[in-house]
C-alpha cells in the first residue's frame, strides 16, 4: 500500500494569550489516502478550521502545534519556512470559504493563477504562466477563459470566483487539497456544481481532499470518510455510511437528528419527525477538564454513569462497521445510541 498523502498523529494545538493557554485541538490522529475525501465536521469552535491551518502551517502567531503532520512525505511541523513555502501550493493547497476575500481586488484572475505557477517553477515565463492560467480556467469550467483571465475578482459571480479559487489552488497539482467550507458562501445550486467539480478534479488528479464543513448535506454528497470533532477532540471517525447510518457517538447521532432530510420518516403517530436540537451550547475550551467534553449536553451520560464526568473517552474501534472500514468513536457507551435516545 502506498504511503498516505496526509498523516496526522497526536496533533494538539494550543493558543496562548496573556500567559494563559487553551488547547483547541487535542490528540488528533488521522490518515488520508490519495483519491479519498475526508470530511471534517463539527460546530463553530470545534477546531476544524485550525486543523486545516495547522496542516498548511498557517497558524496564527498565538497558536502552536505539537504532534506530527506529514504531507506527501514531508514533516510539516519541523519544516523550515523555505521548505514550507515549497510545500504550500504544490504539495498541499487550500480553497477558502469566501472567494471574494480570498482574491486580491487589485490583481486580475490570471495574475493570481500565474503567480501560483511561477512561485513553484521559476523557469515558466510570464507568458507561459498566463497560458497555464487560461488552460486551468477552462478546466474548472469558466466560459471564455482567454477573456476571463483579464477580469478582476469583482467582475465574477460567486460561483465563477470559487471556480477561479479552485483553479488557483489546483494549478500545481497538489497531492492534498484542503477545502475550508468551499460552498458555504454559495447558493444551493452553485454548491452542487462546485462540489461536483471538486469531485471530478479529485478523480482526475488523484488527490486527497480534506473537506471542512458543518453542512451534512455537503458532507453526504462529497465525502468518503467523516471525522466528527467535538471541542477539539475526535468524537467519531468512520466511513460516510457508518457515520450516517450507525453513528456510535451520541453527538453524531444528535447532529443527524438536527439535520433536515427530504426522506424524513414518519413517526408512530404518522407525523413528520421534528428536527431535534442538541441542548446546551458548545463546551467552552477553558472548562474542558476531566471527563467527556460532551457529557453536560449528552442525554446518555446518566445511563453510563460517573465515568463520563471523570474519564476522558478515547477513540476506540467499533465492531459494527458496515463496510469493513475503520470506525472509531470516543464514547464510554458500549453500544450504538438510537436517534430517539439522544433527543430529550
Amino acid at each position, binding site marked *: 500500500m502506498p504511503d498516505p498523502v496526509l498523516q496526522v498523529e497526536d496533533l494538539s494545538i494550543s493558543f496562548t494569550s496573556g500567559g494563559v493557554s487553551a488547547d483547541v485541538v487535542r490528540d488528533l490522529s488521522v490518515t488520508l489516502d490519495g483519491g479519498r475525501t475526508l470530511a471534517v465536521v463539527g460546530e463553530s469552535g470545534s477546531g476544524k478550521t485550525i486543523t486545516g491551518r495547522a496542516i498548511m502551517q498557517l497558524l496564527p502567531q498565538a497558536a502552536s502545534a505539537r504532534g506530527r503532520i506529514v504531507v506527501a512525505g514531508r514533516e510539516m511541523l519541523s519544516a523550515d519556512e523555505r521548505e514550507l*513555502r515549497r510545500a504550500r*501550493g504544490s504539495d498541499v493547497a487550500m480553497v477558502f470559504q469566501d472567494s471574494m476575500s480570498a482574491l486580491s481586488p487589485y490583481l486580475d484572475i490570471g495574475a493570481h493563477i500565474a*503567480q501560483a505557477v511561477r512561485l513553484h517553477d521559476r523557469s515558466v515565463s510570464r507568458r507561459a504562466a498566463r497560458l497555464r492560467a487560461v488552460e486551468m480556467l477552462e478546466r474548472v469550467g469558466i466560459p471564455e477563459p482567454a477573456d476571463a483571465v483579464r477580469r478582476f475578482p469583482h467582475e465574477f459571480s460567486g460561483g465563477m470566483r470559487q471556480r477561479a479559487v479552485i483553479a488557483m489552488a489546483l494549478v500545481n497539482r497538489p497531492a492534498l487539497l484542503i477545502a475550508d467550507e468551499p460552498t458555504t458562501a454559495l447558493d444551493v445550486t452553485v454548491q452542487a456544481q462546485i462540489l461536483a467539480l471538486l469531485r471530478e478534479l479529485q478523480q482526475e488528479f488523484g488527490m486527497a481532499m480534506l473537506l471542512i464543513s458543518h453542512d451534512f448535506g455537503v458532507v453526504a454528497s462529497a465525502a468518503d470518510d467523516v471525522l466528527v470533532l467535538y471541542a477539539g477532540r475526535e468524537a467519531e471517525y468512520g466511513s460516510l455510511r457508518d457515520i450516517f447510518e450507525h453513528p456510535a457517538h451520541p453527538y453524531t447521532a444528535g447532529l443527524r437528528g438536527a439535520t433536515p432530510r427530504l426522506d424524513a420518516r414518519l413517526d408512530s403517530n404518522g407525523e413528520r419527525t421534528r428536527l431535534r436540537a442538541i441542548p446546551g451550547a458548545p463546551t467552552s475550551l477553558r472548562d474542558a477538564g476531566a471527563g467527556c467534553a460532551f457529557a453536560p449536553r449528552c442525554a446518555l451520560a446518566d445511563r453510563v454513569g460517573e465515568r463520563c464526568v471523570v474519564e476522558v473517552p478515547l477513540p476506540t474501534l467499533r465492531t459494527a462497521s458496515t463496510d469493513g472500514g475503520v470506525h472509531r468513536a470516543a464514547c464510554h457507551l458500549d453500544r450504538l445510541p438510537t436517534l430517539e435516545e439522544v433527543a430529550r
Partner: protein
Amino acid sequence: MSITEIEQAEGRRSSVLRRFLRRKSGVAGLVMLVVPLVAGLCAPLLVRLEGQDPHTFHTDLLDPDGGRPLGALGGVSADHWLGVVPVTGIDLFAQIVYGIRSSLFIAFGASILAIVVAAVLGTAMGYFGGWLNAVGGRLIDFMFGFPGLMFVIAIMAIVPPEMPRGLVLVLVLAFFGWTVPARIIGAQASAINARAFVEAARATGAPASQIIRREMLPHLFGLVVVLFAMSLPANVSVVAGLSFLGVGLRGDVPDLGKLLSDSLPWIYSGADVWYMLFPGAVVFLIVFGATLAGDALRDVLDVRTEDAA
C-alpha cells in the same frame, strides 16, 4: 468586500483623476500649489524675464529718508513686479521666487523622506507584527512624547555653521515627521495582512517579499500619497516658521520665512506693508492650496468619504 471597494477597484485606473477634477476645492488648491511651485522651479528664468536678480541693490528706488520704497504698493513697477525690499532695494519678486524654491525644496525633501521611512517601517510592522510591531509602536509613542518643534528649534540653533542648513533641516523635519504616518500605515498594513487574500497568497507558497509587494502595497499606495500630500503644507509652514524665528536658513539664501521676519519692523511702523503682504500671500497660497488638494485627494482615494456621485 464592500460595494464601495468593488467600485473603487473597478474605477481605480481611470477615474481617480476624474473624481479629483470634479472637486472644485481640490482643483483650486492644486492651482494654488502648482503656480508658486512652478514659479519656484523656474525662478532663474522668471527673474531673467523680469530683468532683475535677487542680489542687486537699487538704492535709487528708495526714499533716502528711512529707506522706504518709493511709489505705490511698495514700489511695484514694470521693472520690479512686486516692488523692492526696503533699505536695500533688492527686487522683491526675485527674492520671493527664489525663496519659494528653497522653502519648497526643503519641505518636499522632508516630506518624502518622512513618508518613505513611515511606509517602510509601517508596512514591516503591519506585516511581521509581533515584537517588531511592539517595538515600533513603543518607539512611535516615545517620539510622540517629544515636544518636536522645541527640539527642531534647539537643534537648528546649535547646528555648526559649516554644515549645510538646508540638508540639516530636511533631516530634522523628517526625523520628527515620520511617526504619525508610520502609525497610520502600520495600522492599515496590519488590517490588510489579516485579510483572506493575503492568507490565500501564503497558502500558494508566496514569500514575504512577494506578499508585501503584490498584495499589500497596492492597497497602501493611496494612503501613502494622501499622507504625503497632507504633510507637505505642514512642512512648508514649519520651514517658514523656523526661518521666521531665525533658526532656519541663514546667509544670503532667499527664504519666505526670512522675508517675513525681516518685514516685521516695516509692518509695525506701517512704513511698507507690502514687504510682508507679498511673501505672506505666497506662503498662505502654498499651505492653503496644498491642504485643499490633500483633503480632496484623501476624499477621492478613501472610499469611505466618497460622495454618491
